[in-house]
């Protein structure tokens, strides 16, 4: 019997009992759809969290002054050493490291900003032009800080969205002079609303050149240095290069702490991937239930078609052909169920995305493949027993049943 004839015969047989076939396809479809939707949900959650972290720059290394981890007792640890300050020169020196692509020094302080008789407290961030690409900031209007020598800065400021609204309302802020602390700055750009990465909200901050921030606060230390390495894989090597340069500059003492978001990111990635696998596993249970249903339906089918099996044997169908006929029927039912389930699942995932636009709930391709494959294998595995039963029927007694 040719494969095409086998499939045609099996499809005809399945169509012969439309209600039963439809119910079975539905059960299989729900199983596959559950896999698709739940993995889409898990994957969506993972992508959402990853996206939030990437907004901070996933290949970011943050340099903090001082050491947070305590070593063993040694000559050095007995002396209470105030850490050496981080300076703008330290930040510039880091650009020498081959794996470092961008560096932004960051000085932070609180001050007040005044315009047209209005006064407001504000967070002042002193940094350089590279801060924007490192933190993925965009400007709403105007432009960000100009690229210039970080030791001297032009008196210009980029203001956060809340500050802009409070001070200027609907008027344009660009080109206006504001007073911050005791100095005058020209507004050259504004940030869009909620320019945040996790945590820090730039809406209530103003950004000025680092040199001016330092003179505002009358200090020459930095709060942080943000270092961007060329790519995520280079983070471990980039860290050691950064550490080496700073150690050299600080008389051989390792007095800084490096934090890379990569580590946090990796942990979250693993947790959420495990979660996705977990929900996929739960969904797979419904596939197994559907498989048992396939077996049940096929057993009923064999019983109802006993006379037909007897006839096929009388017409000269070998046992193997009969087994393949019933297995093909189970496989076709499973595939039809899988196809319907994929449509249902994609529709469900679309519904999720429509309901929660922030969640990129796209089913991962591995889950789609695995769901379809599992459906097919389940159908075949649970089809083996009924098909074997059909093949083993005694033709004489089978023909007598009519």
């Amino acid at each position, binding site marked *: *019997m*040719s494969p095409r004839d086998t499939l045609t015969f099996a499809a005809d047989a399945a169509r012969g009992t439309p209600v039963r076939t439809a119910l079975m396809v539905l059960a299989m479809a729900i199983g596959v759809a559950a896999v698709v939707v739940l993995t889409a949900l898990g994957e969506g959650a993972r992508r959402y969290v990853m996206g939030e972290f990437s907004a901070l720059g996933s290949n970011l290394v943050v340099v903090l002054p001082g050491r947070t981890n305590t070593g063993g007792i040694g000559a050095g640890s007995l002396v209470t050493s105030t850490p050496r300050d981080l300076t703008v020169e330290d930040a510039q020196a880091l650009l020498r490291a081959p794996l470092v692509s961008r560096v932004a020094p960051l000085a932070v302080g609180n001050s007040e900003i005044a315009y047209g008789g209005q006064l407001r407290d504000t967070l002042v961030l002193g940094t350089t032009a590279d801060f924007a690409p490192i933190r993925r900031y965009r400007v709403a209007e105007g432009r960000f800080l100009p690229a210039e020598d970080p030791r001297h800065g032009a008196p210009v400021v980029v203001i956060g969205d809340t500050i802009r609204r409070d001070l200027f309302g609907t008027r344009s802020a660009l080109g206006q002079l504001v007073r911050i602390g005791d100095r005058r700055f020209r507004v050259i750009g504004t940030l869009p609303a909620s320019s945040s990465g996790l945590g820090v909200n730039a809406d209530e901050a103003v950004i000025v050149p680092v040199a001016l921030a330092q003179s505002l606060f009358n200090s020459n230390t930095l709060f942080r240095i943000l270092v961007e390495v060329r790519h995520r894989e280079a983070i471990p090597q980039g860290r050691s290069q950064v550490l080496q340069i700073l150690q050299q500059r600080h008389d051989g003492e390792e007095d800084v702490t490096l934090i890379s978001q990569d580590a946090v990111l990796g942990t979250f990635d693993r947790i959420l991937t495990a979660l996705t696998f977990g929900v996929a596993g739960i969904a797979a249970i419904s596939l197994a239930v559907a498989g048992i249903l396939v077996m049940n339906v096929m057993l009923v089918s064999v019983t109802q078609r006993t*006379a037909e099996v007897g006839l096929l044997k009388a*017409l*000269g169908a*070998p046992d193997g052909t009969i087994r393949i006929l019933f297995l093909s029927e189970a496989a076709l039912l499973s595939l039809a169920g899988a196809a319907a389930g994929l449509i249902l699942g994609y529709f469900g995932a679309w519904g999720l995305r429509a309901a929660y636009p922030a969640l990129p709930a796209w089913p991962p391709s591995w889950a789609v493949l695995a769901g379809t494959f599992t459906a097919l294998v389940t159908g075949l595995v649970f089809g083996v027993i009924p098909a074997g039963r059909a093949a083993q029927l005694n033709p004489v007694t089978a*023909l007598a049943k*009519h």
Partner: protein
Amino acid sequence: MAQIELQGIDRRFILGDSIVSALRNISVAIEAGEYVAIMGPSGSGKSTLLNVLGLLDPPDAGTYRLDGRDVTTLGSNEQARIRRERIGFVFQSFHLVPRLSARENIALPMVLAGIPPKDRQARVGRALEDYGLADRADHRPDQLSGGQRQRVAIARATIMRPEVILADEPTGNLDRATGQDVTQILEALNAQGVTLLVVTHDQELGSRARRCLRMEDGAVVEDLRRGPSSSGLR
């Protein structure tokens, strides 16, 4: 050498704790092209004999030679092949597949034999013409009369051009006129040289055959030949 040679065929069934002998020491030789009626009361073993001849039921003892070849010892796939290529079955209750059209039912043996669709179409078309079913080709069995169903079944049994046709009460479910019609079709096939074995209760049908095997209690009690010798047809 006879086409069909049975020697010492026994067939026993276990019913509960008793053993029932359906066939006892049957030895029969049938030449190619013979027309044989197998008659006898219910439970005399007629159908079992037919099933043994059709390789559907393995005998417990004895040998069955088809064209000189011992077929009782063949594997099940080989036996299936012989059923497919050399034996045609006609049943009392027709045994048509209900969801398939007349055309598809007739084509079924060729589908199982793996004959390409193009050849199938031509042969089924011819068979539909021959059996007067051309205008019923796409009807399903439940849309056909009893006579038409049995004609579909006979067309199916002959589509592989078998040498032997085994018919179990072929007219049992038909009215008299239709039964005669079916009998004539079967006899026409026999006239073309096909060996025809018919199990029947019907005295009239039995008396038309040139040879009659009368069975009682699993044994052949009478082997009656009439008319011209079947060997004359070869």
